[in-house]
């Protein structure tokens, strides 16, 4: 069996596994739903996820331990992850193959030749690590922007599967929405289409993970190389070279992704996977020291430069409401990969990839948008923290979220606080009964209570002409039937009130209450309003009220992050 065949089977296997993990990342216990599928496994295998969080937090988060295995195998064998496992790599390889079909051999050899600018990816890696390296300046983990595993996870979870689902509704009941999904798609599509320019463009020029694996393959025991110097220099070995590592000449070990195509394509059996350096010579990471230093320093400075916006300090944007269990903002930004797992698993679709609300560094991090999705954050759900691969959203239990059991004294986790916009609220400013928010508040006792008031309707002051039984005839025309909804009352001059059961243009009928014996003079037609108020001690910021508010454009009750549990500086109450 040819090793290249085994490799392709392996790639197909891991790609399928990856897609499967994406599909099953929905809450439910059918076999195609999350149950205990290790949906984060490929993210956990990603050594750059481990490295990035180690650099930013100075800690190695336990569930990422699988990455150690990948690192060890890379040290022994070289960049096998890129050529054998990486699902993004598999996509590039396949698209590159499609793009190269029908091209002349010489052209293929030209496309796959080693280019000096492939070293850019090392600079990207170093730049990102620089951004994360100094928490005292403003450590922020941005590897996830270009790390292929978070990138491809995000692209599948937030763009490709939702697009696919639009027509089929196979993996979700309702259409999913992801604000800024278009930008995620644009990055993904660009990366894929670049394969038509140069195969595996992303892997060769951009991929910071590939760069990291290239660096640690420096001491690999087995490497691709030539066994004899006698070679006619036909360059057939570079015809299908995936890494662009120049096996025909001085091979660039750090670029080799162990595709073994060179070994297959050499008609003279000159290339092997061996324990000695290539007889044609080999080069380790080919990057200038000056470039590395410059990139690192740029990264170190870029992080505080982004923080100048004050978005992580007093200028925080009110809409940055994070999922339950999210760490305080500076810690959160040290861990979030922007992988999109939480956004996809969220049963209500309320978790969204942020734009620039949380600052440049908060791009694609999870925030709650209560106008999107089927409801706000559900009282009995902690799925987002359970799938977060780096514990940027801690894996909390339901007891912790709701403040039950051992968390009674800590109280429930608050995501923020709902504020009533009295200028937009129907009962507050339009004299229309509503209280949908109060009805839907899931907190017990309800965090929304009402202040009951009677207020006189517009043009509601009329004079009594005659009282017959329970009907009052009035002197002036009023809109027929308008006041028969059960919310309207008649206020008599003596201060007593009766409920209106019906009305014509010139009369009102009374159901509840007694018409005063000597009812004369003017009456006021009043509406009984229940005006919602938020009890800030009870409100957990779940956003169900905001979602349900019928003022659908800009909601009349909105959750903002004041009072969130995760930070003390946004505290609202004592």
């Amino acid at each position, binding site marked *: 069996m040819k090793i290249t065949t085994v490799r392709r*089977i392996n790639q197909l296997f891991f790609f399928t596994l990856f897609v499967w993990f994406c599909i099953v990342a929905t809450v439910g216990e059918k076999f195609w739903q999350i149950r205990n*599928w*290790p949906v984060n496994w490929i993210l956990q295998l990603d050594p750059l996820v481990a490295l990035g969080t180690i650099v930013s937090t100075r800690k190695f988060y336990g569930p990422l331990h699988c990455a150690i295995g990948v690192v060890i195998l890379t040290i022994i064998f070289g960049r096998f992850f890129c050529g054998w496992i990486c699902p993004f790599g598999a996509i590039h390889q396949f698209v590159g193959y499609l793009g190269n079909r029908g091209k002349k051999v010489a052209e293929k050899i030209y496309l796959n030749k080693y280019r000096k600018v492939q070293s850019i990816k090392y600079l990207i890696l170093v730049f990102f690590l620089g951004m994360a390296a100094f928490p005292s300046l403003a450590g922020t983990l941005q590897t996830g922007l270009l790390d292929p595993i978070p990138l491809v996870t995000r692209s599948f979870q937030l763009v490709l599967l939702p697009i696919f689902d639009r027509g089929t509704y196979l993996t979700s009941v309702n259409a999913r929405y992801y604000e800024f999904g278009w930008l995620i798609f644009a990055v993904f599509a660009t990366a894929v289409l670049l394969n038509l320019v140069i195969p595996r463009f992303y892997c060769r020029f951009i991929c910071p993970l590939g760069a990291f694996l290239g660096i640690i393959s420096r001491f690999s025991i087995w490497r691709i190389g030539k066994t004899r110097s006698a070679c006619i220099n036909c360059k057939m070995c570079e015809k299908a070279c995936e890494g662009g590592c120049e096996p025909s000449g001085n091979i660039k070990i750090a670029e080799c992704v162990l595709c073994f195509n060179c070994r297959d394509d050499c008609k003279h059996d000159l290339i092997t996977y061996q324990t000695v350096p290539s007889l044609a010579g080999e080069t380790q990471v080919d990057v200038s020291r000056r470039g590395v230093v410059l990139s690192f320093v740029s990264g170190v400075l870029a992080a505080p430069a982004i923080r100048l916006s004050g978005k992580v300090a007093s200028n925080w944007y009110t809409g940055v409401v994070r999922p339950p269990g999210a760490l305080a903002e500076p810690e959160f930004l040290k861990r979030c990969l922007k992988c999109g797992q939480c956004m996809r698993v969220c049963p209500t679709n309320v978790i969204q990839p942020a734009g620039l609300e949380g600052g440049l560094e908060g791009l694609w991090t999870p925030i709650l948008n209560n106008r999107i999705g089927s409801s706000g954050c559900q009282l009995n759900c902690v799925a987002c923290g359970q799938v977060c691969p780096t514990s940027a959203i801690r894996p909390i239990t339901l007891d912790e979220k709701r403040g039950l059991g051992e968390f009674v004294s800590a109280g429930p986790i608050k995501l923020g606080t709902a504020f009533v916009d009295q200028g937009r609220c129907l009962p507050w400013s339009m004299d229309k009964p509503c209280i949908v928010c109060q009805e839907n508040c899931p907190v017990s006792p309800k965090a929304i209570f009402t202040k009951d008031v009677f207020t006189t309707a517009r043009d509601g002051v009329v004079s009594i002409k005659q009282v017959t039984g329970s009907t009052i005839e009035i002197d002036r025309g009023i809109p027929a039937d308008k006041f028969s909804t059960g919310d309207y009352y008649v206020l008599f001059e003596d201060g007593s009130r009766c409920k209106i059961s019906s009305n014509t243009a010139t009369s009102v009928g009374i159901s509840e209450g007694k018409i005063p014996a000597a009812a004369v003079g003017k009456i006021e037609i009043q509406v009984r309003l229940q005006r919602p108020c938020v009890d800030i001690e009870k409100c957990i910021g779940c956003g169900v009220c905001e979602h349900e508010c019928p003022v659908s454009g800009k909601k009349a009750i909105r959750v903002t992050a004041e009072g969130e549990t995760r930070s003390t500086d946004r505290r609202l109450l004592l």
Partner: protein
Amino acid sequence: MHLYSGRARTIESVVGVLILLIMIATAVGIYIISQDYNMARFGIASQEESQGDFTSVGKAETYNNDNLYEKIDGKAPMYQEAGFIKLDTQRFAAKSNSELGFEIYIYDMNNAKNAFSVYSRQKRADATDLGGLGAPASPDSLVSRGGSAFGYVAGNAICLSLGKNYVEMIGSAESNELVDGMKGIAKDLSAKFKPTEKDKIAELGYFPVVDTVAGSWKLQIDNAFGFDGLTDAYSALYKSGDKTVSIFFSKRRNADEAKTVAKNYYDFLITNGAKAISVDSEILKSAGASVVDFYGSFEMVFSTGIFVGGVHEANDKQAAEKAAEVLIGRLKEIND
């Protein structure tokens, strides 16, 4: 030397097969992992939980002091006054017939006395005591073993006092099949909430050994018989000849306090319209017992050692006095 020799090809094939085997093992491993799941991890409890012949319906709910009234409305204060901590409820339906089911209420009452108090005070008149819970059948064994697990069946309901938990299972219908199923679950629960040594209520054994009606014990934590000075009052029915009277006692910290409580209770009765009448029994006279006529029924109160004791709402004075004599004797025994 030709490296792509037959040997090289064999190695290539072996390595290839090994890699594919690892791959298959990975797939199998992942599948096995995926099978062992607990949806509670995501905050969503498994949709169905099996309990014998029943499966759970809907979500389990928990209530605390703030929202207990939402579940049981006006009954909430009774539990809260008796030390209520939390209530867990869950509905179950029979596997054979989904129409048939019950709802279980598990009240965490903080300690066994609180649990027994709400249990005994709500005990239905038509109750049949449940055996097999480890509840002692006779007062004798109560003194040595103490009581800690109690239960009864009444119509469609089973109620249990298990350590600090008071449990109610309310069936949807009065059916033997259902009650039998619920009994099975009651047994499971008594094993699950196995009472500990400190859950034992030894006082239940202080009633007269003979003629106390087993299972008629009641505990009123406070405000017993409407008098707020009488706390931790145990009462039970006693067969006095062919009559049954209710006898009670309360253990105080010392003899002086017992005397004061007895006196205060007597004054309380008089203030509320009771008329003092003479005591016939010499034993009771010497014990300083008082008898009053309270609108046609007889109340008796005395103190002996650290105990306040008496008879409550007796219809027959003779029977009441006889019961009181026996109770005094028994309490004296305990005092010693």
